[in-house]
């Protein structure tokens, strides 16, 4: 696979972020669907050994059995994207078995016009023809308990979140929305959490490459009057 870089073992990163005060962890096998694989179980199982915050696992979950395996390994939620697009009923089936709170719908959004975004799958490789806002409403109606919205246009750019996209999704649905893609600096969280009311932000390479850290990000949030968890590091 071109364009991918190995930066370390997922569990070392996970443990470090847990100890530094992350509120939740998201494990995403970004190329699982492409290769038709699903072997996050072992990573999840070992994470559950020493991480005592919620975690979500996504990538390659195609059936209720896949979801059950991941949840049994200690995950709290599964994130689905590609499989939900090809079989929306899967959302309902997983929600019925394990509750809506365990189903995170991951939506990869690419802007295709003014105020218009299209749903992509396979980590931004395949277009689906679906409108993001319509799809978000369908997913919630089918039982998704949370939405993880990733802007493909912003992902990796460090230019900040797609605030307009997140704002439109937040207004369209009644479940928590996690904004993802494009975080370049701590201050980027303010518009997306404060102004448009996202419930959480997901961040990856800003932490992986140590451009910032949780205490700096929390400080920015607290100074802006956003409610974030305060904790002591022990």
């Amino acid at each position, binding site marked *: 696979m071109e364009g991918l870089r190995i930066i370390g073992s997922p569990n070392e990163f996970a443990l470090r972020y*847990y100890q530094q*005060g992350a*509120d939740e962890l998201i494990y995403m096998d970004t190329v699982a669907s492409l290769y038709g694989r699903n072997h996050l179980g072992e990573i999840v199982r070992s994470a*559950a*050994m*020493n991480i*005592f*915050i*919620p975690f979500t696992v996504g990538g390659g979950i195609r059936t209720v059995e896949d979801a059950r395996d991941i*949840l*049994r*390994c*200690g995950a*709290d939620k599964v994130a689905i994207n590609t499989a939900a697009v090809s079989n929306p009923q899967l959302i309902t089936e997983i929600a019925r078995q*394990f*509750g*809506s*709170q365990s189903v995170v719908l991951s939506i990869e959004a690419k802007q295709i016009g003014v105020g218009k975004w299209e749903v992509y799958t396979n980590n931004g490789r395949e277009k689906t023809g679906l409108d993001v806002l319509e799809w978000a409403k369908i997913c919630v109606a089918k039982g998704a*308990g*949370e939405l993880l919205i990733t802007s493909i246009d912003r992902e990796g750019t460090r230019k900040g979140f797609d605030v307009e996209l997140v704002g439109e999704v937040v207004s369209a649905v*009644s*479940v*928590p929305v996690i904004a993802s893609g494009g975080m370049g600096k701590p201050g980027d969280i303010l518009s997306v959490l404060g102004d448009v009311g996202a*419930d*959480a932000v997901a961040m990856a390479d800003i932490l992986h490459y140590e451009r910032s850290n949780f205490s700096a990000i929390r400080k920015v949030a607290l100074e802006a009057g956003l409610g974030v*968890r*305060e*904790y*002591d*590091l*022990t």
Partner: protein
Amino acid sequence: MTLHEVTIIDYGVGNLLSVQRGLEHCGAKVSLSSDPKTILKSERVVLPGVGAFPRAMEALHRLELISTIQEFAQLGKPLLAICLGMQLLMDESEEFGLTKGLGLIPGRVVAIPKITIEAKAQKIPHIGWSALRSSNPNSGWGESLLRDTQVGDYAYFVHSFMALPAIPEHRISDVIYGGHRIPAVISSKQITGCQFHPEKSGEAGLRILRRFISI
């Protein structure tokens, strides 16, 4: 028998691995069981639970565990009920019609209000981190599992219903959600119910589990 033995009641609902790992991390020797005799002989018992109230009561009934848990509680040994487990402690629940609970703490399980006190739409379930507050400003947490917890510590919640004790003294800690006070920890004698997941609440949660295994 070691000092920190815990039995988690395994009645087929939800993932027990995280609770088990949290307790083990705190130094407990943990076993899972659905056998009434084993449960009754245990030093401490955890009643976990996710999902719907009626289904959980059905499962407990099928395994003949309702009277087991009631008997265990009467022995005065420590019982920690987590999330749906806490709701099962009550007399009854309004989730999907009225269902009888374990009746260990008087009160009822009702839906979290769907609007905030400012009459805005409220997101249900209540998912996420909320700060623990004292329910009774006049009584501290010294006698409860929250002895080592600070007011304002955050805990991780996932729930759509809440357990409302009939007796105010049974209410130990609340959280504020949409302006409403929602019971977070309830307690009567050696029975404690936690609406949040201590095994998913970082160090603050682990402090509660440590307290539980050392009483």
